[in-house]
């Protein structure tokens, strides 16, 4: 627009007609959308660009080195492990308080992550805040290393932090999980990071955060016992099978994330540090190693875990948590170990 006085007046229309010079409006020309969606439709892009395109802006290499001398080791231009240092410090401070008050949900300023809520944004932020160059990361979705969520988070950190990843529980120093606890017993050198959707165990009993916060402050957990009692009166047993509430170190009632109750006993007196991150709900909490984690129950209805009436169809082992897999459209199905690493290890051992 060379002449400001003519702007927006009918008497002096813009010298540039609508659509003029835009090749993409011409039938048959490809849309200049780039490599992604639509890029291939209509054949290769051959026409001239609609606007003269400036060369991409890169910071001068020397300036870049000065600003972030050691940032990242991966092949991408991110800070190490994606998050900026200020965000990491904020998350780290929340983690320290979470460890000091086991089971208490520490609010934190959760960031938008390059993945939708529900895909583990809380766990990813916790992992990003604790990861160091020498860490070896394992990510599981339920028990599996090879499903979309697990693969993409593992690749996310391989790319943004350049760290080593593994599917072997024994080799990992940091394990991010949604939501199972690996069968291979965890050790003192390991940290388990849980992805948590709803961190508040009382949320479905009391929707107001102001109230649940008071209930935790007063250790007023009668409502949770009423809920478990109602289960018994309706079903004859406690029907909660996942996200089964636990009491941590004799004080806070905590949601162990939607881990099957089969795994609850593994949280008790665990040698590894357990950290929980809820991205959308903006809460971080923790269970230190060797901490009493008690699943809530009644004297006459003690806590029990699920049992399976068959062995794993792949490794043949009994007493493990099984997934049902539909194998065809004729009702065929098989039951296999949910923990893929433990199952593979058993099969390798049998060979």
């Amino acid at each position, binding site marked *: 627009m060379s002449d400001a006085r003519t702007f927006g007046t009918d008497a002096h229309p813009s010298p540039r007609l609508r659509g003029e010079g835009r090749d993409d409006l011409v039938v048959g020309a490809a849309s200049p959308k780039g490599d992604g969606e639509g890029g291939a439709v209509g054949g290769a892009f051959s026409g001239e660009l609609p606007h003269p395109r400036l060369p991409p802006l890169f910071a001068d290499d020397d300036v870049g080195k000065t600003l972030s001398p050691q940032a990242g080791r991966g092949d991408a231009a991110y800070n190490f492990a994606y998050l900026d240092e200020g965000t*990491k410090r904020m998350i780290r401070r929340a983690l320290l308080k979470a460890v*000091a*008050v*086991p089971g208490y949900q520490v*609010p934190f300023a959760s960031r938008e992550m390059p993945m939708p809520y529900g895909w583990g944004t809380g766990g990813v932020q916790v992992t990003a805040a604790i990861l160091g160059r020498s860490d070896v990361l394992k990510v599981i979705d339920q028990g599996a290393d090879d499903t979309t969520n697990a693969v993409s988070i593992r690749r996310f950190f391989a790319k943004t932090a350049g760290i080593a990843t593994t599917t072997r529980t024994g080799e990992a120093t940091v394990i991010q999980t949604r939501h199972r606890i690996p069968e291979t017993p965890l050790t003192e050198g390991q940290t388990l990071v849980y992805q948590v959707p709803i961190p508040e165990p009382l949320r479905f009993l009391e929707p107001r955060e102001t109230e649940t916060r008071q209930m935790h402050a007063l250790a007023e957990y009668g409502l949770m016992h009423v809920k478990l009692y109602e289960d018994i009166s309706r079903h004859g047993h406690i029907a909660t099978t996942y996200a089964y509430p636990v009491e941590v*170190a004799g004080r806070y009632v905590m949601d162990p994330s939607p881990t099957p109750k089969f795994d609850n006993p593994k949280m008790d007196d665990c040698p590894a540090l357990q950290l929980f991150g809820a991205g959308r709900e903006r809460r971080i909490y923790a269970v230190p190693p060797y901490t009493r984690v008690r699943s809530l129950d009644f004297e006459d209805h003690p806590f029990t875990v699920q049992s399976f009436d068959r062995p794993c169809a792949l490794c043949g082992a009994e007493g493990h948590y099984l997934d049902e897999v539909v194998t065809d459209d004729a009702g065929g199905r098989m039951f296999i170990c949910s923990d893929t690493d433990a199952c593979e290890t058993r099969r390798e051992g049998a060979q």
Partner: protein
Amino acid sequence: MLRAGFRDPVHESQGVFRAVLDALARPGTIHAIPARLDPPAPLTPELAAIALALTDGDTPVWLDPALAAGHDVAAYLRFHTGAPTTADPARAAFALVREAERCPPLADFAAGTPAYPDTSTTLVLALDRIEAGPGLRLTGPGIRGAAELALAPLPPGWPAALRENHAGFPLGVDILLAAPGRLAGLPRSTAVEG
């Protein structure tokens, strides 16, 4: 002249944080703290490393009289962290104490509120010596059975003050103990005898 901060801020602060996290998650264990800093006296390299790794504009820092006396320490921390200093220990997110034998009563610091116990002060104490051995007997979350920790110098009123701090759980201060090259944690969840 202003002394340098971390040479590699990203990875050095991560290393310091992991040592602090391990120390608080496993009270009674002693951790190596990578502190290659050369801060202005009387600030110790360990206190400086913890401050540079964890404090920023969101965390008011309280300095004990020994650290606050000289202008250098406050200027060093302000330049490298941007953290505001406060004269009121009850408003501090972090408190740096150089002279443990003159440490104020733990009740002077923020203990958090029943709804938000995370709003308590983290106390960072410089000590001469931290050893595993007869002294304080620790039990609680993070400790397999019991642990023993010998500290020198022992701040005034300890270990009774630590028992009192633990009695207020979930309120209370969390304490980091930093001797040359060594770090230990005493979170409020730890029960102390001895």
